[in-house]
């Protein structure tokens, strides 16, 4: 992005950036913070964007990832009492219901309940790695930029996160495994 030459230019460019990213940025924050702080985190994040407007990448997808990185730093700073914290975990919703009424609905719900439980057992580092890929839809290069690590390191981390989730799914507590078989399932 070119250097802003006037206050009017700066405001115009900022409004364009805001329009491009605000919805995705809100979702990014909502995945990682309680609803009561979302608006304040967004305000702090966009104030950084305002001040560093010349640093915002020109390409929309890069700009989106860049604002995610800023929001992540804002969120981590809110947790600075825990100095060891270097990752932001994500909590999935406990509501695993589907909008369909097909014969497989119960099985789908059971599968998602198991998935949510397995997710809760992941480390925050693994949750964060998977979240950037699956929920934010970032490629490795942009996800790595959010985390301030190399793309190779991010891919390694993502590989391990997937394996950890698979392992948790394969080793669900007996109670949840039993529940999975409970819903009645019709067969052709």
């Amino acid at each position: 992005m070119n250097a802003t030459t006037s206050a009017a230019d700066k405001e115009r460019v900022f409004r364009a950036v805001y329009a491009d990213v605000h919805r995705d940025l809100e979702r990014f924050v909502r995945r990682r913070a309680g609803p009561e702080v979302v608006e304040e985190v967004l305000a702090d994040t966009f104030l950084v964007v305002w001040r560093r407007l010349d640093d915002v990448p020109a390409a929309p997808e890069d700009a989106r990832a860049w604002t995610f990185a800023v929001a992540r730093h804002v969120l981590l700073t809110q947790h600075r009492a825990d100095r060891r914290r270097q990752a932001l975990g994500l909590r999935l919703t406990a509501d695993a219901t589907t909008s369909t009424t097909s014969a497989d609905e119960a099985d789908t719900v059971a599968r998602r309940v198991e998935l949510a439980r397995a997710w809760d057992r992941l480390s925050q580092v693994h949750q964060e790695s998977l979240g950037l890929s699956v929920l934010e839809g970032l490629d490795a290069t942009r996800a790595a930029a959010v985390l301030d690590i190399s793309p190779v390191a991010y891919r390694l981390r993502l590989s391990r996160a997937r394996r950890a989730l698979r392992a948790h799914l394969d080793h669900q507590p007996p109670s949840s495994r039993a529940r999975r078989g409970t819903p009645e399932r019709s067969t052709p």
Partner: protein
Amino acid sequence: MTWTRQTEDDLRSLDPATRGQEMTPARHDALLERVVAEGAARDAAPASTPVAAPAAERPRRSTRAVLVTGGLVAAATAGLLVLPPLLGGGDSAYASWTAVPDGLTAEQRHDAAEDCREGYRDTGGPNDYSRELDDATVAVAERRGEWITVVLSGADGFSALCTTDASDPFGPTSGVVGSIGTTTGWTPPGPREVVPDALGRGSTGSGDFSMAAGTVGNEVTGVSYDSTLHGTVVATVNAGHFALWMPGDELDDAQAAGVALDLTYTDGTTSTVVVRL
């Protein structure tokens, strides 16, 4: 359970951001006007308290700079990529490192190879070795304390090396070094030859390390290095490849000066050879 598109669809179905109340357009408009007004006011009063944006303000570690200053030296290859060492490994000062490597369990070997493949896959550009990685097999898989090294080997001199700190609390992938590439004009080593393709010094958050890795002929059964700091450092030798490494920078100039390796052959004889890139 395998990782499928359905797994990702299921995860997305549990996305908390798609449930509950999102901010309305009116609230976003209000937030936008609030930030614009506050930002403009701060611009007009630069001596006032700085905007709180702490972490984003810190100097960013440049991956490119780390690559230049800390990368492991590797052979002249076509499209070689040296993986930048990352800061912040969990094994401080390589405290767990051992001069003699241990093997890996089948599961550890599989996981380490999978991580190495995924780490280098789909990089795009001239350094994209996704196809070679698909065809590569595990030649070396060893453990020295908390540090795991794998070498994936493919046709025409292709190899990919990954050394990671399994104790790293952040992944565990913050402490990771390696190299990947295909040696230009590569020919198989002679029966009693050793040909390095990665040699020199690198660094992680745990400090400097020195590494030698490459290919060996089919009569070479053992490779070791007489370290001034650590005594005899034994390489893993398998499937025509060898790899050894040690804490410290004693191989810093090995690419030019060479490094003396002690070789053991199938007939029980030994020799010392000096190899360089």
